[in-house]
């Protein structure tokens, strides 16, 4: 599992950027290790008839391999996160004390930040090249948590953390909020839990909502980006419920044929580089391949969410839900130019 933001913060602090190191950080680190113990527990439960969880040895070991790389690159690049946040904090607008109420506030705001970070990570190929690694397994279990990007700090989306520090939230509070958010998301990567109580499903992210998020069925693509509070998806029109009549097919639209962690971590960058080097492209086309939605093509033969939904709807002769707003970014991308 990836080093928590808290641990990264501690390392950053010791490098000469002295700031308080709350005891909560140690609690977050302990919680992280305890959560890892849930993986063998799920495997053991799944070996009986009552619980559903599909593990495969190669897939699980690939997840661990990707995790090792993710931890390594987070360790050497986390200064980008903390450097930006502490710089912004040094030029803050307000002095917001690190108290229980300010933590609740920063937690809610950081969760909104997470929603947009996640949504951008799915809608633009440069960011998808980083985040898509987490979606590349065709299995869905607690070990899927381990399959994390190697390049999330490098992609540039760490800048989304800066505004909270600029407002005046302490970097330690931001790091703790980020860590608690990621720790919450651990338990939702499972098939062993069907549904939570109705109020819980309405308010919070759950295994059911997150299964949809990991689905490659056209109906489920680009939906349920929430970290903790499901209200962001409901508010911004990206919520899609899990349907009993449509089992989730996990993975990518075009799945990988490898368990090699390096290929898993870098596959979309290689595909993007190949697309960018196609002969005869205009700069507008190159921008489309770089920033357009995943599946965008310069010749108009898109495999974007909107195109896949349209094809599925035509095949079935029914309309698929249009609320998952992938369609909007697709329309934006077609403005980048196509030659059909």
């Amino acid at each position, binding site marked *: *599992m*990836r*080093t928590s933001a808290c*641990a*990264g913060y*501690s*390392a950053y602090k010791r490098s000469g950027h002295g700031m308080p190191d709350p005891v909560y950080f140690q609690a977050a680190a302990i919680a992280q*290790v305890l959560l*890892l113990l849930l*993986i*063998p527990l799920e*495997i*053991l439960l*799944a*070996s009986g008839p009552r619980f559903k969880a*599909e*593990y*495969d*040895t*190669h*897939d*699980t*070991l690939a997840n*661990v*391999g990707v*995790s*090792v790389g993710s*931890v*390594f690159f987070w*360790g*050497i690049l986390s200064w980008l996160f903390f450097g930006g946040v502490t710089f912004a904090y040094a030029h803050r607008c307000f002095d917001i004390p690190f108290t229980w109420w300010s933590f609740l506030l920063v937690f809610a705001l950081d969760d909104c930040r997470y929603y947009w970070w996640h949504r951008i990570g799915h809608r633009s190929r440069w960011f998808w090249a980083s985040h898509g690694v987490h979606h590349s397994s*065709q*299995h869905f279990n607690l*070990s899927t948590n*381990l399959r994390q990007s190697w390049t999330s700090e490098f992609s540039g989306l760490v800048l989304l953390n800066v505004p909270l520090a600029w407002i005046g939230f302490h970097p330690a509070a931001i790091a703790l909020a980020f860590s608690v958010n990621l720790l919450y998301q651990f338990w939702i990567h499972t098939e062993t839990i069907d549904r939570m109580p109705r109020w819980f499903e309405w308010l919070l992210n759950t295994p059911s909502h997150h299964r949809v998020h990991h689905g490659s069925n056209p109906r489920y693509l680009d939906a349920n980006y929430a970290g903790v509070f499901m209200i962001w998806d409901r508010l911004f029109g990206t919520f899609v419920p899990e349907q009993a009549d449509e089992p989730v097919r996990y*993975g990518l639209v*075009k*799945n*990988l*044929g*490898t*368990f090699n962690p390096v*290929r898993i971590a*870098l*596959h979309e960058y*290689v*595909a993007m580089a190949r697309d960018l080097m196609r002969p005869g492209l205009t700069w507008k086309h190159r921008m489309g391949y770089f920033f357009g939605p995943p599946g965008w093509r310069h010749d108009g033969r898109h495999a974007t969410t909107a195109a896949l939904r349209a094809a599925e709807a035509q*095949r079935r002769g029914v309309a698929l839900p249009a609320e998952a707003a992938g369609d909007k970014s697709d329309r934006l991308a077609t403005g980048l130019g196509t030659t059909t």
Partner: protein
Amino acid sequence: MSELAISIAVNVGLGIALLGILRWKRVGDTARLAGAPEAIELFARQFPAAAGEATLADDGQSALLELNSDGCIGLLQRHGRRWNARMLAAGEVSSAELKDASTIKLKFDDFAWPHTQIRIGDADVRLRWLQRLQALRARHA
């Protein structure tokens, strides 16, 4: 750096522990094709318009499909507990050769799916598929 070293060590330790548990509980490694109709059905889940005849590998972990349209070959390959389907058109196969007496080894021009191998015991069937796949490669070359 100590946090980084500890985190990596925790991951490696976790990997070893999970490998032990997965082996102990004999998890996974269960997906096998029961027959040609199943291979065609699984292939059609990813390519709904596809239809043709399937040849199963001896180990039931992959199948080659002679598709009715476009001169394409379909490949169905086990990936963990799931199945990957792929249309092999001219340009998809960079190399097709015999790895040993009964195994065809295919290399693809694809970073995310670089190679695969298919074991076919029947010599005539194996040779026919090898020629078809090499022809696909020759068309590209």
